[in-house]
């Protein structure tokens, strides 16, 4: 099956499976009701995959939930219609829509463990869906096994009697999909179905969804924040921003000739594997607006490089550019003017391995817990004999999937987890050397994945940044305020945020605070554990650029842990690929990405969204 077999705009009109027109949703807040989704219209044709792309607060999930009439209590439908095969879902009696859910319309959510009942076998849960919609006991049992086979669970007859916890994350998501398609639905709604999964697992799930469409003719509404995922599997795309559908149309058209600046900037700011590495990513400034504080006019105007006066005053209507491609920008009638190329310098990489490494890990073995005569089982080995080096002024990327031991290794490098054997030497110092510990603490710092958890919620930004200066007595009391101000401007934060608490900041701002705090002790090596994966796509590029700028400005070295290969390729000169506690491949980034030697590296690269072959083809 290829995309050509499922033209998004068929020659003769067919009845769309799902038709949403003029949908507007409101959120009740203490300050009154605010619009969260405004005037969104789209349709999904039989056997078609529509990808809805957007960042947090774009309204993409609420749009999907409104189709199932499962909106949170605080959100109400303001106007508009949602039609499933011509029937209005919004006005349908509760009994009828309940009958449709799980039967004609299936749904897949982000976290499969939360969706499955831990006390029932997966077979029993699939049978329940079938029985509730009228199938006999024996037929349901047979069909459940058949479904597990269909979604790619090996040995389905036996696995049906297993409980959810006995499945891996990817396999659990397959079980959830089996439940969703159990009754051969005509429409499947998948809300971030692969976000919680590893890349190689994600590729398998996306392939499965494409295959189900081909085999069962199911139409799919796929909600995601990842433009690469959309590119790989979708026939058509709808891009949402601040509650509006800003652009939609056939996938090739929208991605090949985006007519809304947001779509184009989003694509440009997403690091990719198939374009030359630029010194700086073309980042979209700012962050997606909060629902209660959306700017007037076009909601994207404050961040838009092409905005002019009219954009600030008036929301542009959706303009048809032909062949069902619509975009809500005043400039959409013609192709957008070419972007400024100032950032488009290709990065030069220096490889001067003569310099002494700042980090030298030799044959590191790390376990959970120590071996003890009181325990029968030996402790589990997480990292098994890893050796790597990081050089001053450069970035080492540590790539791997969950369970590969990369985060444990990172925590060992910063001294949070002890080594079982081997040696970690940072600028000649080791954690085992008690006299050097204080100095080591100032030499190596860490940037964490979740910028909310890693900042004490009870401290203001000012306190957060002053504390390291006080504890290490780095700056005399009188100079501390100035140093804090300096740190703020170093990471590009306005001084006005100093009085704030972390929860009052956006994700990107919080991550900047986390970086500033690490910089406070003037480290020379920074270990960053997934520094951008918790951030919105349009904010990721800003943080990647900030890290690169700080490295060049302050001569820092980084060890960056990431699961996203395109991020690593963008930020790192050297790469080490980890699998099952060992490094399977390492070397200069260009070499590893251009000519991967190990099978696992090749699999990772092939599975990376946006880079792989069209999975449906």
């Amino acid at each position, binding site marked *: 099956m290829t995309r050509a077999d499922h033209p998004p705009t068929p020659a003769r009109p067919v009845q769309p499976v799902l038709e949403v027109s003029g949908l507007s949703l409101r959120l009740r807040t203490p300050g009154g009701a605010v619009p969260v989704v405004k005037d969104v219209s789209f349709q999904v044709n039989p056997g078609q995959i529509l990808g809805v792309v957007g960042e*947090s*607060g774009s*309204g993409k*999930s609420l749009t999907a939930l409104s189709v199932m009439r*499962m909106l*949170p209590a605080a959100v109400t439908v303001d106007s508009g219609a949602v039609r499933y095969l011509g029937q209005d879902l919004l006005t349908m009696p509760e009994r009828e829509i309940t009958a449709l859910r799980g039967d004609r319309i299936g749904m897949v*959510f*982000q*976290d499969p463990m*939360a*969706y499955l009942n831990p006390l029932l076998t997966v077979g029993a849960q699939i049978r329940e869906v079938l029985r509730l919609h009228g199938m006999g006991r024996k037929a349901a049992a047979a069909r459940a096994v058949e479904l597990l086979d269909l979604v790619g669970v090996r040995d389905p007859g036996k696995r049906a009697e297993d409980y959810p916890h006995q499945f891996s994350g990817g396999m659990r998501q397959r079980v959830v999909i089996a439940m969703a398609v159990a009754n051969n639905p005509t429409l499947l709604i998948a*809300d*971030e179905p692969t976000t919680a999964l590893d890349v190689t697992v994600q590729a398998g799930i996306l392939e499965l969804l494409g295959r189900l469409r081909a085999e069962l003719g199911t139409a799919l509404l796929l909600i995601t*924040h990842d433009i690469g995922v959309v590119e790989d599997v979708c026939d058509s795309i709808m891009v949402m921003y601040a509650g509006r559908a800003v652009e939609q149309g056939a996938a090739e058209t929208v991605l090949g000739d985006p007519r809304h600046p947001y779509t184009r900037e989003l694509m440009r700011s997403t690091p990719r594997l198939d374009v030359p590495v630029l010194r700086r990513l073309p980042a979209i*400034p*700012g*962050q997606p*607006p*909060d*629902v*209660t*504080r959306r*700017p007037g006019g076009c909601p994207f105007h*404050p*961040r838009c490089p092409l905005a002019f006066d009219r954009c600030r005053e008036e929301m542009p209507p959706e303009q048809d550019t032909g062949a069902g491609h619509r975009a809500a920008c005043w400039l959409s009638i013609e192709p957008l003017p070419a972007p400024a190329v100032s950032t488009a310098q290709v990065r030069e990489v220096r490889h001067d391995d003569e310099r002494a490494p700042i980090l030298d890990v030799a044959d590191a073995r790390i376990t959970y817990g120590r071996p003890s005569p009181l325990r029968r089982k030996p402790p589990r080995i997480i990292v098994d004999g890893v050796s790597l080096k990081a050089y001053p002024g450069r970035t080492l990327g540590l790539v791997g999937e969950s369970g590969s031991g990369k985060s444990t290794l990172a925590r060992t490098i910063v*001294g949070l987890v002890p080594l079982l054997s081997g040696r970690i030497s940072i600028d000649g110092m080791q954690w085992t050397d008690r006299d050097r510990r204080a100095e080591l*603490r*100032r030499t*190596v*710092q860490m940037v*964490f*994945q*979740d910028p909310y958890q890693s900042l*004490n*919620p*009870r*401290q203001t930004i000012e306190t957060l940044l002053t*504390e*390291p200066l006080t*504890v*290490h007595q780095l700056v005399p009391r009188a100079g501390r305020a100035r140093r804090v101000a300096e740190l703020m401007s170093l990471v*590009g*934060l*306005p001084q*006005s*945020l100093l009085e*704030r*608490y972390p*929860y*009052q*900041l*956006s*994700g990107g*701002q*919080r991550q900047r605070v986390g970086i500033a705090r690490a910089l*406070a*002790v003037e480290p020379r090596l920074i270990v960053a554990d997934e520094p951008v994966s*918790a951030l919105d796509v349009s904010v990721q590029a*800003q943080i990647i*650029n900030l890290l690169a700028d700080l490295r060049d400005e302050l001569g820092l070295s980084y060890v960056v842990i990431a699961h996203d290969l395109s991020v690593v390729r963008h930020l790192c000169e050297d790469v080490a690929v980890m699998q099952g506690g060992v490094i399977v491949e390492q070397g200069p980034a260009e070499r590893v990405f251009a000519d991967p030697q190990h099978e696992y590296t090749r699999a990772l690269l092939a599975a990376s969204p946006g880079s792989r072959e069209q999975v449906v083809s």
Partner: protein
Amino acid sequence: MSPSPEPQGQLDTPTDTPGPTSDALAAQDPGPAGGRVRRSRYLAALRTPGGIVGMCLVLLIVLASLIMPLLLPYGPYQQGPNSLLSPGGGHPLGTDEVGRDLLARVVAGTRLDLLITLIAVPVAAVAGTLLGLLSVVNGWLGAFFQRVFDVLLGVPAVILGVAVTIAVAPGTAAVVIAIVLVVMPVFGRQARSSLLGQLPLDYVAAAEVLGYPRRRVMLRHILPNIIDVIIVRFAVEMSHAIMVEGGLSVVGLGIQSPDASLGSMIKSGSGYLLEHPAYALAPVVVVVLLVVGYTLLSNALNQAVLRK
């Protein structure tokens, strides 16, 4: 089926507006300071129906125990000619077996109970919380105190009271010590379980990576993040302490004659339950009102803490 949470939080996106040009963005509205938010959360809790009733009950009893001695014609130790008078006349609640005014004794007993609990519970709260958090600084000592708390929790209050009165003469001091021993482990376990919820959070790891001293991490970082639960627990344990005092005095291990406490009055009054019911019932009513008041208050605070 339940709606899935949006990965980055659909409805609770952070509060800021995009700025105009650079990567750096000023969030424009000056939000309220976090400390103020927390205080206003507690105030909001006190404005709920349960919070108001609880607050009023406790305040009324406290005020009454402070003001009434000034208004009453008799002192709590002052003996009159008539014993076991029924309520009425010059003695609103009647008199006890040696002719002392019961109202004056209930008021004095309430005051003593409040004094005892207000000394014992804060001491227990501070000691229990700090010992519960001790494992941040020293894992071995922290574990040791948890086992001590296990033992204390396993011994009934009355047995603890007996043990204390062996060492210290029965009386106010013994009751205070007994209450501390009963209540402290509760705070210790509470602090410990809250601590375990905080330890996996990255801000604790960040503090270690930044080389902050352990004691600072415990007091400046973890303690402020668990103080909400400790405050709720405090209100719960105030009512618990009132009941412990009552229990100890009823079995004769508590406040000794001629001093009056609610528990000791229940004990001596219970002998005259049929001919003079007001004797035992009056202190029981005060105990019940105090316990109900503290419980309502702790529930309201708990709701406020959960709502964050």
